[in-house]
C-alpha cells in the first residue's frame, strides 16, 4: 500500500504543472477546485496510509522512488514514519482548507490560475521536504519551498513593495541555507552518506560532541532562516505583501515550520550536543519574547499576525531545544490550526474593508461579519492559551517541559511565561480593535460577511482549534504514543509528573493568558482617545516596538549598504574598466594598428612596384649571403 505514497507528492505537482500550462483555458473557479482536489487527494492518501500508525505499533518504512545521486546516499526516497505522516497530514489538511478559502479570496484576479499553480507547487515542495528519506531530498524540498515563497509573496509583482519583499525573503533564506549546506557537508564527510538510515543509527558512535555541536548550530542557522528566528526573521513581516492565503499557508502553517521539523528530524544528532540544544532553546525563547513585544504595537492587522508567528515559532524552538520534541510538534500542529484561521479571518476582514489593513481604522465589525468575528475570537483564545482550547495544551506542555528540564531552561520558562501574557494581550488587542467598539471607518468601506466558500474553512479550522488540543493531554498522551517510533533513538523531555505540579504550572500559564486577555479587553474596549493615550504612555518603548527595534534599518546600514558599495565597486571599479576594458582594448588595438598601417595603401601602382622590388632585392641578398 505504501507504494502509493508517491501520489502524495505527485498529485499537487501534476496540478501545478497542469495549471501552469493550460490553466488559462479554465474558467475561474475551476482552476481553484482542481488545485484543491489535488491537495485533497494527497490528504486522503496520507490519511489512509497513516492509519497503521494511529493503530499503533507499525514501524517506519522507506519507499524508494528513483535513484538520483546514489553515490552520496541521495535517492528520491520517502521515509514514512509517524512524524512525516503527521507533517503531511497537517500540510495537506490545512492546505486543503486554505486552497478552498482562496477560491473565494482570489476571485477576480487576472492571474487566478497561476496563483493556484504556485500554491500546488508549494504543496508538492513542502511534501517533498517532510517525506524525504535523506537530507538531499529534504534540501531539495527546502529550496523549492523557498522558491514558491518568492513566487507567492511577489504574486502581485507590479507592486514594488511586493517584489522587494519577495527578494528579501529569498535572500535572507539563502543566508540560512548557507549554514545548512555547510552542516550537510559536515554530515556527509562524517557519515559518507546523506541518507537518514545511514546517519541516525550511527550518530552515537561516529559523532564527537564537538562535531555534533557544530552540525547542530549550522542546522540551527538554516532553521532560523526558514523559520524566522533571530537574527533571520526580518523577511516574515515583509512577506505579508503576499495574498492572505499565502500568508496563512506558507508563513503560518507550513513552510515556516520546516526549521522545527529539521531539528526534530535530526534529533539523534542534537542528542549528542547539549550546547546545541541550549542554543536552539535560547534563540527560540528570545525570539518569542522580542517578537511578542513588537507585535504589541503594530497597526497592520497582518503584521501583528506575522510577528505572532515568529513568536510562536520561538516557542517551538524552545521545545525542540529542550528535547521535548513531541511538545514542539504538538504546538506546530495546533499553531497551524489557529494561525491559519487567524490569517484567513484577517483576509476576510481585509476583503470586507476593501483591501485596507490598518486596525486603527476598523472597529465595530462584529455585527457585520459575525462568522468571521466568532471564529477569529476562538482562534484568539486558542493562541492565548485559554483551556480547553488547543493552544493551551501545546503551549503548556512546552512551558512545563522547559521547567522540568531545569537549570538554564527554567530561566527560559520565565521568558515563555511573560511571552504568554504578551501574546494574550496583543491578540486580544487585535480582536477588540477590529470587532468591538464604535466603527472608525465612516462609510469608507462596505463590510460584509464573506461567501460560504470562505467561511466554511474558517469554521472547520475553528473546530480544530477547539478540539485539537485533546490530541495530547497529560492524561491521554495520544500524540506522544503516535510519535514514539519516530523518536526511538532519543530521550524525550516530559513535563513534570504529578497532578499538583500540573495544576501549578498550568495555573500560572492560564493566569498569564487570562491576565493578558483581560487587560487588553479593558483597555481597548474604550474609545480611541483612551487607548491611544495608553499606547503613548509607553513611549519611547512603544515607538521602538512599533518599528521593530529598527532592526531593518540596522541591517540596512551594517549589511546591505556595505554590500551594495562592494557590488558597485566590483561592477564599476573592476568589471567595467578591467574586463570590459580588456575586450574593448583589443578592439582598440586592432584599430590603432590599422590606422598606422594605412599609409602603405596609397593606391599608386608605382609605389607597390617599388615595394615589390625592394623586397625582392632583400630576399636575393639574404639568399646570396646565406650560401
Amino acid at each position, binding site marked *: 500500500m505504501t507504494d502509493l505514497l508517491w501520489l502524495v507528492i505527485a498529485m499537487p505537482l501534476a496540478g501545478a504543472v497542469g495549471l501552469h500550462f493550460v490553466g488559462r483555458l479554465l474558467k475561474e473557479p475551476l482552476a481553484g477546485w482542481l488545485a484543491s482536489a489535488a491537495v485533497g487527494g494527497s490528504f486522503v492518501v496520507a490519511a489512509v496510509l497513516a492509519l497503521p500508525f494511529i493503530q499503533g505499533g507499525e514501524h517506519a518504512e522507506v519507499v524508494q522512488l528513483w535513484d538520483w545521486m546514489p553515490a552520496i546516499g541521495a535517492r528520491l526516497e520517502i521515509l514514512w514514519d509517524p512524524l512525516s505522516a503527521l507533517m503531511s497530514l497537517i500540510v495537506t489538511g490545512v492546505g486543503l482548507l486554505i486552497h478552498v478559502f482562496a477560491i473565494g479570496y482570489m476571485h477576480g484576479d487576472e492571474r487566478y490560475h497561476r496563483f493556484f499553480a504556485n500554491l500546488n507547487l508549494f504543496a508538492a515542495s513542502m511534501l517533498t521536504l517532510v517525506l524525504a528519506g535523506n537530507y538531499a531530498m529534504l534540501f531539495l524540498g527546502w529550496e523549492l519551498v523557498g522558491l514558491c515563497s518568492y513566487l507567492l509573496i511577489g504574486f502581485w509583482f507590479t507592486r514594488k513593495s511586493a517584489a522587494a519583499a519577495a527578494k528579501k525573503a529569498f535572500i535572507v533564506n539563502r543566508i540560512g541555507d548557507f549554514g545548512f549546506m555547510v552542516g550537510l557537508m559536515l554530515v556527509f564527510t562524517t557519515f559518507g552518506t546523506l541518507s537518514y538510515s545511514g546517519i541516525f543509527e550511527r550518530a552515537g558512535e561516529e559523532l564527537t560532541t564537538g562535531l555534533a555541536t557544530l552540525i547542530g548550530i549550522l542546522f540551527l542557522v538554516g532553521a532560523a532562516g526558514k523559520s524566522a528566528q533571530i537574527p533571520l526573521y526580518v523577511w516574515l513581516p515583509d512577506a505579508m505583501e503576499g495574498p492572505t492565503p499565502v500568508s496563512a499557508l506558507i508563513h503560518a502553517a507550513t513552510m515556516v515550520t520546516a526549521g522545527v521539523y529539521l531539528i526534530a528530524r535530526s534529533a539523534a544528532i542534537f542528542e549528542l550536543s547539549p550546547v546545541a540544544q541550549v542554543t536552539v532553546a535560547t534563540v527560540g525563547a528570545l525570539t518569542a519574547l522580542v517578537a511578542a513585544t513588537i507585535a504589541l504595537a503594530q497597526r497592520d492587522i497582518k503584521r501583528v499576525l506575522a510577528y505572532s508567528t515568529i513568536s510562536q515559532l520561538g516557542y517551538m524552538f524552545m521545545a525542540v531545544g529542550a528535547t521535548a520534541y513531541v511538545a514542539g510538534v504538538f504546538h506546530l500542529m495546533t499553531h497551524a490550526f489557529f494561525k491559519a484561521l487567524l490569517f484567513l479571518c484577517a483576509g476576510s476582514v481585509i476583503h470586507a474593508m476593501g483591501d485596507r489593513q490598518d486596525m486603527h481604522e476598523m472597529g465595530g465589525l462584529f455585527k457585520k461579519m459575525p462568522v468571521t468575528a466568532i471564529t477569529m475570537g476562538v482562534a484568539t483564545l486558542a493562541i492565548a492559551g485559554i483551556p480547553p482550547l488547543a493552544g493551551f495544551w501545546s503551549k503548556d506542555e512546552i512551558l512545563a517541559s522547559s521547567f522540568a528540564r531545569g537549570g538554564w531552561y527554567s530561566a527560559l520558562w520565565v521568558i515563555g511565561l511573560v511571552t504568554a501574557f504578551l501574546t494574550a494581550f496583543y491578540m486580544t488587542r487585535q480582536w477588540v480593535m477590529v470587532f468591538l467598539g464604535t466603527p472608525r471607518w465612516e462609510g469608507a468601506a462596505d463590510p460584509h460577511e464573506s461567501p460560504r466558500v470562505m467561511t466554511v474553512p474558517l469554521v472547520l479550522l475553528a473546530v480544530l482549534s477547539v478540539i485539537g488540543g485533546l490530541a495530547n493531554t497529560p492524561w491521554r498522551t495520544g500524540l506522544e504514543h503516535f510519535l514514539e517510533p519516530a523518536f526511538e533513538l532519543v530521550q524525550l523531555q516530559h513535563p513534570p509528573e504529578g497532578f499538583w505540579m500540573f495544576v501549578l504550572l498550568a495555573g500560572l500559564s492560564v493566569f498569564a493568558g487570562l491576565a493578558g486577555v483581560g487587560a487588553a479587553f479593558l483597555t481597548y474596549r474604550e474609545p480611541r482617545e483612551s487607548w491611544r493615550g495608553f499606547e503613548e504612555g509607553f513611549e519611547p518603548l512603544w515607538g521602538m516596538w512599533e518599528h521593530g527595534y529598527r532592526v531593518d534599518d540596522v541591517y540596512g546600514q551594517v549589511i546591505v549598504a556595505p554590500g551594495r558599495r562592494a557590488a558597485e565597486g566590483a561592477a564599476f571599479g573592476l568589471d567595467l574598466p578591467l574586463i570590459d576594458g580588456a575586450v574593448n582594448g583589443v578592439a582598440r588595438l586592432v584599430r590603432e594598428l590599422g590606422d598606422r*598601417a*594605412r599609409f*602603405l595603401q596609397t593606391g599608386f601602382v*608605382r609605389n607597390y*612596384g617599388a615595394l615589390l622590388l625592394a623586397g625582392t632585392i632583400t630576399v636575393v641578398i639574404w639568399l646570396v649571403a646565406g650560401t
Partner: protein
Amino acid sequence: MVDAGWYMGLAGALFLIGALGLLLRRNALVMFMCIELMLNAVNLTLISAGRALNDLTGQVAVFFILVVAAAEVVVGLAIIVSIFRLRATASVDELSELRG
C-alpha cells in the same frame, strides 16, 4: 665562344633598365614594355647558363616563360584598353581609387 659572363652582365643590365623603367614611367604601355624587357632579360640569363653548363634545362625553361609572357601580355593589354576606353588616360597615377 664569348665568355658566358658577358651575356649574364647584359641580361642584368637589361633587367635593371626594365626595373627602373617600370618604376619611373607613368604610361601603362611603357610599363608593360619594361616588364617584357625584364622577362626577356631573364630568358637571356637562362640560355647563357644553359650554354655554359651544357644543360638543356635552360632552354626548356625559356619556352615556358615565353608562353606565359605572351598570355600575360594579351590579358594585360586588354585591361589597359578597357581602362583607356573608360578613363581616356593611360597614366597609372590617375588610377589610385584603391587607396586605404
